[in-house]
């Protein structure tokens, strides 16, 4: 067997053993999902423009509640979260449940697939 194939098989086995790996999102579809669900309140342009919600440019890896010039709720600032992919996965389906007291008035992203697509899109905005 050639080496690449062995590595691939090994990775696939490891993937199978560690449980279903989330299917990687599609950034293009994520851009549409962002336009549908988020763009009314958030911008991802690199000028860090705040709207009803803070700028999401460079959000992945950033500490929660730290965009300059945006008035966050106490709930958001108090979390101490860092917006990793996993943190977004647990937040986006139902923000108010994940962060009681948040002033983000959004009911949640309906499907897991759209959440993955959004994360893939946000990864490109930094």
């Amino acid at each position: 067997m050639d080496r690449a194939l062995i590595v691939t098989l090994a990775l696939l086995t490891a993937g199978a053993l560690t449980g279903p790996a989330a299917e990687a999102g599609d950034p293009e579809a994520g851009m549409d999902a962002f336009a549908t669900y988020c763009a009314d309140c958030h911008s991802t342009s690199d000028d860090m423009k705040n709207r009803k919600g803070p700028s999401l440019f460079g959000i992945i890896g950033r500490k929660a509640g730290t965009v300059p010039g945006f008035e966050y709720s106490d709930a958001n600032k108090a979390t101490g979260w860092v917006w990793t992919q996993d943190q977004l996965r647990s937040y986006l389906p139902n923000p108010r449940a994940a962060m009681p007291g948040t002033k983000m008035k959004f009911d949640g992203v309906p499907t897991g697939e759209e959440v993955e697509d959004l994360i893939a899109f946000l990864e490109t905005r930094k």
Partner: protein
Amino acid sequence: MCRNSLTSALWLAIAGLCLVAFTPSASALPSYARQTGDSCSACHVSAFGPQLTPHGMAFKLHAYAESTGAWTPPVSAQAIVSYLSTSKDNPASEGEANGNFKMDELGFFLAGKIAGPVGAFAQVTYDGPGHVWGIDNVDLRAAVDTEMDQTPVVLGLSVNNNPGVQDPWNTYGPWRYPFNDSAFAIGSIAAPLIDGGLEEQVIGATVSAFIDSRYYVEAGVYATPSDGFLDSVGVAPDEAAKLDGAAFYARAGYQRDWGKDNMHVGAALLTANLSPERDSSLPSDSITDLVLDAGYQFLGTRKQIVNVQGAYTYEWRDLKGSRFVGDADRASADLQSFHVDASYVYDQTYEAVLGLNAVWGSSDAALYAPDPVEGSRTGSPDTTSVSLEGDWVPFGKDDSYGAPYANLKLGLRLTHNFTFNGASSNYDGFGRDASDNDSVLAFLWTAL
């Protein structure tokens, strides 16, 4: 005279265009966009008002007071210039030639957050053809977010001067299609009271609750202010309706917002007693309007938007007062109206709207009497028309030129009347046909 107004309208149009073209850094009310950091297209279908998206509705229900935190001046201005051509001249419009190029309105707004949870939409308008300044629609609001068993509730208070101006949907009252008209448009003889019959002539207060972003309930009362007050805000008292006691207004709606699309169904009620000839010692007319309305919006990624909405109104009329003074033959009567509009918007920039309007009701030869152009030969109010509008909204998006200052809507509306004031031919008793009122309206609407 005519040449003068034409030149002044032209100058205004040029001034308007200059404002649009030369101011740095969009929306129906640009001060809202500046305050929230949102683009006009977040709150309005087609990047120019007034038609609201659920996001715009939430902003209104939160008292126009949401902001990014930084203070921005809550002021805006708008100008509407139009050219109206009716198929046949309007002989009643003394000396005004058909094909009028007019500055219809020049308006200034106090619009946005005033302090804390208090905000305003308050318009002062210069009526071009009438050459007068006057108070226009005013909606002063306060709102608080609370929770009932973990369900979010927005509680609101509105002090306003036009039943319906505070409504979050665009199906009746001041915010329904068509959103503007020429000051020279020939109006049909009857409309339900809730469609503008009390506008700017009353003051009222309503309280509302929007529960779980789904259930909307509202109730309140309206009264006629003193003549002195009306006079001071530029409303001619002798032309204003006079309420006998308080009018009652109630509204309920159910909305679902799925992000990609949304819908609502609702009902509204307005009951009022009106004194004929503004004389409260005479018996009064009792009017009750029941409106049933519904709407659907497909927003998707906002690239292609479809919006359909409509309302049916039944008006119960007990015209004892009008009969007493000889303005009506019968006391017990009704009036009904139905209108629906469907629009398609591409890229928040190009919009096509198809509208249908119908009013019908019991006949009354005294109430609807023959009169050139404005009257009725048959004593019937029945009017049915269709209109087709095309609009171009070049700015107002996030990445637009001049955002959020440059805002412009250019529109063309064709209206055809099947029947007018009760008939299709010789409807007024003076030889005018319904189709003689068919019109072409071109307009330029800017906001700053």
